[in-house]
């Protein structure tokens, strides 16, 4: 049975699109046929991060309006055959989306794909609502700072009350916490919330901690999901996240400041 994953946060700029791209690529690399959908109509970014912006012909709004078929709009990723991207429209706004149209697209995708990753826009309005409404699993992306944590908390409330699963009294959406842009050094100095602080406030299953990393910016600018950069800490962290989501048991990394005295002396592990 296909699963619909929403990557959401409430707050903007925390790494939703980076995460969507990385986990979609990760799932596809593991051999699962995966589609990733950009719900950020009007502020389309996913195509850039995935490096397919020059191949966009049709987008999700065209599909909803019946101007293109789903297969016409889906773009096959150039790195991985199992991965397809459904871009957002840049010239429209969120009102171009509707629940019926989105539901139809997701139903169709579920027939063909194992995982459908929905990249939610920031906010809690229509675009974000539609991105999460049909979800089975939610990856809540949070930065270790208070406003991001509170916005995530708000989003968790909406997931448990305003989703289809909630409205139809089905088993609730499975919620996972993804802590991004984490910097153990700054946690140590006390200017960043620690994993425990965030866990304490959100009380959510921690799927992974993604360290603050230069490789994320490099990857975004070059249009290759960071998970493909297997040498980078962020890439490895995302690989762990995907493995854990698929049921593997992997210890958490990148939580502690590992560059201690010996670390500095002998290089990082």
């Amino acid at each position, binding site marked *: 049975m296909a699963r619909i994953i929403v990557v959401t946060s409430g707050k903007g700029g925390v790494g939703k699109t980076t995460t969507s791209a990385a986990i979609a690529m990760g799932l596809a690399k593991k051999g699962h046929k995966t589609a990733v959908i950009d719900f950020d109509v009007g502020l389309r970014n996913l195509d850039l991060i995935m490096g397919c912006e020059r191949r966009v012909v049709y987008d999700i709004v065209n599909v909803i309006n019946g101007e293109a078929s789903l297969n016409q709009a889906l773009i096959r990723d150039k790195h991985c055959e199992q991965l397809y991207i459904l871009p957002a429209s840049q010239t429209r706004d969120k009102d171009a989306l509707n629940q019926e149209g989105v539901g139809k697209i997701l139903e169709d995708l579920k027939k063909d794909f194992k995982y459908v990753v929905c990249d939610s826009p920031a906010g809690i309005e229509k675009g974000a609502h539609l991105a999460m409404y049909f979800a089975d699993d939610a990856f809540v992306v949070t930065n270790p700072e208070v406003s991001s944590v509170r916005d995530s*908390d*708000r989003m*968790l409330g909406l997931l448990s009350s305003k989703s289809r699963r909630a409205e139809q009294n089905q088993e609730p959406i499975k919620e996972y916490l993804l802590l991004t842009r984490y910097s153990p050094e700054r946690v140590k100095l006390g200017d960043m919330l620690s994993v425990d602080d965030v866990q304490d*406030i959100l*009380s959510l299953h921690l799927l992974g901690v993604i360290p603050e990393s230069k490789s994320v910016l490099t990857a975004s600018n070059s249009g290759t999901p960071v998970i493909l950069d297997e040498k980078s800490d962020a890439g490895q962290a995302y690989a762990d996240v995907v493995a854990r989501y698929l049921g593997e048991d992997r210890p958490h990394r990148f939580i502690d400041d590992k560059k201690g005295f010996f670390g500095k002396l002998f290089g990082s592990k």
Partner: protein
Amino acid sequence: MSTDSQKTPYNPPALEFKSSTFTVPVLVLSSNDLLVIEQQLQEKVRLAPEFFRNSPLVFDLLELNKRNLDIDIAALTDIIRKSGLLPIGIRGGNAEQNKLALALHIPVYSIHNSVSANSQKPKAIVPPPEPKTESVATTLITQPVRSGQRIYASGDLIILAQVSAGAEIMAEGNIHVYNTLRGRALAGVQGNPDARIFCSDLQAELISIAGNYKVSEDLEKAVGKKPVQIYLQDHALIIKDIV
């Protein structure tokens, strides 16, 4: 079947009775001085002439009859009509007044606690009020209450998970939070001063009992991380450890 042709369904009735509810202004009189009534009524009408023009009106004599003040019904209806209002009913009148009103084609309305009932028939024996059942359902929440969520309980509210900052929980009765309370908690919201708040870690943004509140700035840092109860004593919120 065709014996009674007037009742065949093919002959739709020319009329039917339906029940309908209207909002009608009621003129409650507390004086039987017709001159004063006329003067004050016209003053009122002058304030909103459009509203009162040809407005139906029921006049209420309950207050007068409680004080045994009689009034001339015919003169009163004249005054009302002169002010541009159309009297369509009498309420709270005694038997004599009702009879006079009916003679003027003004129907009689009843109110259940009317004294007119007293004058006509012996007071019905009022059964003693049922002992109030205090078993208003308790609301139980097992999931975390997230930022932006609001929960209202008409009885007691028991929450087994945490209450996040930015969440709001309200109960007409007591509130129990068997976890960290970071949001706003308002107990006894309908004014019950005996309501209490219990929680195992008080970090609330605001706590309130029957409208008496404290915001987190007023709370001492020391109250957190241990079970406490909050109750009202002489209009002051008392926070006390539960040992």
